[in-house]
């Protein structure tokens, strides 16, 4: 994707600064807040126009929470969200509306949000009713165009949700997301539930739409293969923190953070040629209500030392646009293991 302007500079579309999202845990007789799930602890990043930024990490590390917080679907605990140079987190509803139109989300199962008794065409047309003053006929024509745009047929207009396959459902989710000409779309595990063959079709569609409409994507996924194929840059999260960020080539070829190295080595490769050197992370993700002291990864890190248990590592730049938070960033986790 070409994400630079004519002077070779990238234009920032979205800027997240020190975003935090805690969920209260209530308990006891009086249902007082006893502690917090630190779903997102400290996340900052920029998203450039026309690029795809991957967000990866284990289940529960805060990816979806981050996405929802950016779109204002969850109230922030702290931090700022700047979209097109405007801080939107504190705008009032009415002022926010024009930005909301520009930011959309595609979920793993777009049908969870659809009425099973409403036909697909009218369900999409409804989005136009909320945000535009188009006539009924205009809306219908626009929906027909959209259906074709995402690879469905006009006759699908009058079908019910259950009549569609997984891949087709995701195409409907995409149609709904692009109908108001957004500039930014968050895809939250948008292709994860699909079969590989259908997944490839949907990924191709998302890429085509990106070229055509200059879309920027935040692409949340636990599939590192898909992220490498689809994204320009990647953000790796662990227990609510970003632990590494970089261009796809840099991050996959020379991962700095031990967690990124471990994630990459754990992926089963669809090839039988060479058996790789592998690191198996032991144990599970710690409880985000009670995160470890110091570096959040130290309980599972193969190269953790005393310092890691006490001191939280700083977020530092190690190469062009390549960041990590680790006291020993760049050290291989493989040589320590036998």
């Amino acid at each position, binding site marked *: 994707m070409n994400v630079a302007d004519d002077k070779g500079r990238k234009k920032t579309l979205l800027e997240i600064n020190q975003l935090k999202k805690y969920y209260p845990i209530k308990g006891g007789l009086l249902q007082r807040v006893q502690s917090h799930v630190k779903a997102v602890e400290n996340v900052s990043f920029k998203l450039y126009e026309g690029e795809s930024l991957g967000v990866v990490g284990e289940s529960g590390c805060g990816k979806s929470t981050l996405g929802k917080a950016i779109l204002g679907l969850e109230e922030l605990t702290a931090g700022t969200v700047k979209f097109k140079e405007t801080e939107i987190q504190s705008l009032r509803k009415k002022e926010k509306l024009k930005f909301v139109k520009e930011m959309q989300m595609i979920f793993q199962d777009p049908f969870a949000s659809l009425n099973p008794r409403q036909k697909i065409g009218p369900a999409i047309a409804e989005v136009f009713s909320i945000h535009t003053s188009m006539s009924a006929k205009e809306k219908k024509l626009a929906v027909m165009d959209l259906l074709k745009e995402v690879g469905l047929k006009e006759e699908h207009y009058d079908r019910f949700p259950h009549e569609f396959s997984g891949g087709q459902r995701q195409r409907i989710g995409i149609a709904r997301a692009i109908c108001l000409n957004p500039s930014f779309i968050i895809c939250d595990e948008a292709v994860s539930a699909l079969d590989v063959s*259908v997944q490839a079709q949907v990924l191709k569609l998302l890429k085509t739409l990106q070229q055509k409409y200059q879309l920027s994507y935040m692409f949340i996924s*636990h599939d590192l293969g898909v992220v490498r194929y689809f994204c320009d840059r990647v953000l790796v999260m662990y227990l609510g923190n970003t632990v590494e960020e970089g261009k796809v080539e840099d991050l996959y070829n020379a991962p700095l953070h031990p967690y990124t190295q471990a994630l990459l080595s754990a992926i089963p490769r669809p090839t039988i040629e060479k058996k790789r050197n592998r690191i198996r992370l032991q144990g599970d993700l710690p409880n985000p209500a009670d995160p470890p002291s110091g570096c959040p990864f130290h309980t599972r890190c193969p190269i953790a030392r005393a310092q890691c248990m006490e001191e939280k590592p700083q977020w530092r730049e190690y190469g062009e646009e390549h960041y990590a938070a680790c006291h020993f960033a760049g050290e291989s986790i493989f040589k320590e293991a036998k």
Partner: protein
Amino acid sequence: MGEALLEVKNMITEFRTADGYLPAVRDVSFSLNKGETLCIVGESGCGKSITSLSIIGLLPSNGRIASGEIKFEGEAIQSHTSEQMRQIRGNQISMIFQEPMTALNPVLTIGYQLREPLMIHEKLSKKEAHKKGIDLLKSVGIPYPEKRMNQYPHELSGGMRQRVMIAIALSCNPGLLIADEPTTALDVTIQAQILDLINDLKQEYHMGVIMVTHDMGVVAEVADRVMVMYAGKKVEEGTVEEIFNHPKHPYTIGLLNSVPDVDKPDFELEAIPGSLPSLNQQIHGCRFHERCKFAKETCKQQEPPAFDLSHSHSVSCWLEAEEVINQ
């Protein structure tokens, strides 16, 4: 050649539906040796789970094995009563499912669920069963096994629940373990642990393993042999080397080309157009022809038979007819 553990011959499994009886598994044959892992791959809905459920006698109530033979350790089991099958499931064949939460009972402790089968099938006392349960949890890599015995399923993470399922499945030292997408719902780090575990246990107990998956990465990691299914049919079968290095069926090739490869940045994704037909769709000729870019007139009219390319590699595709004749 190893000892044959399981032989499935010309199995047809069908469902009673509003449109009459419709086959979900169409004339499928395969075999499995002791100490061997066979992966069944294909898109969702192609019949992988129904094939496995047919073997262990856990078909949904509207399903039945219409014809064919299933031989386990030389004994035909396809017409066993449900009581006989329950015996076999408790003692010789175990199955683990994609979502361990649905298979574990949420209101019973892990310990209870581990002891129960040991007391019934192995006739152990409660105390012995408890001790064996702890050993089993240890063998599947669960930390603090004594403590876990008193916990409930929701108190464990997804990866740990899957380990508990495996521990229960292994409690009877099964000769055959059927794992249906056992790691699909798990993170890659936990998935790697579980796959290693299944591989280790297979060697230790000399089990046969049938692994159902749609992930070619998982296949490469665990399979000795691979069976590719499409719309209820077996379309290709071979050793893992044959399938990955010399795939022949256009569908197998399509599956391999539609997985993005982390190690190949410039990989061109090739999607298979269209989608799997539904059970009630009538298809003449090759069941894949509507999505196949090599389809010819013959493909639309006649179903291809299986052509043997080696003693272990067979493909059902007309393209092979020419190759075989030309040789």
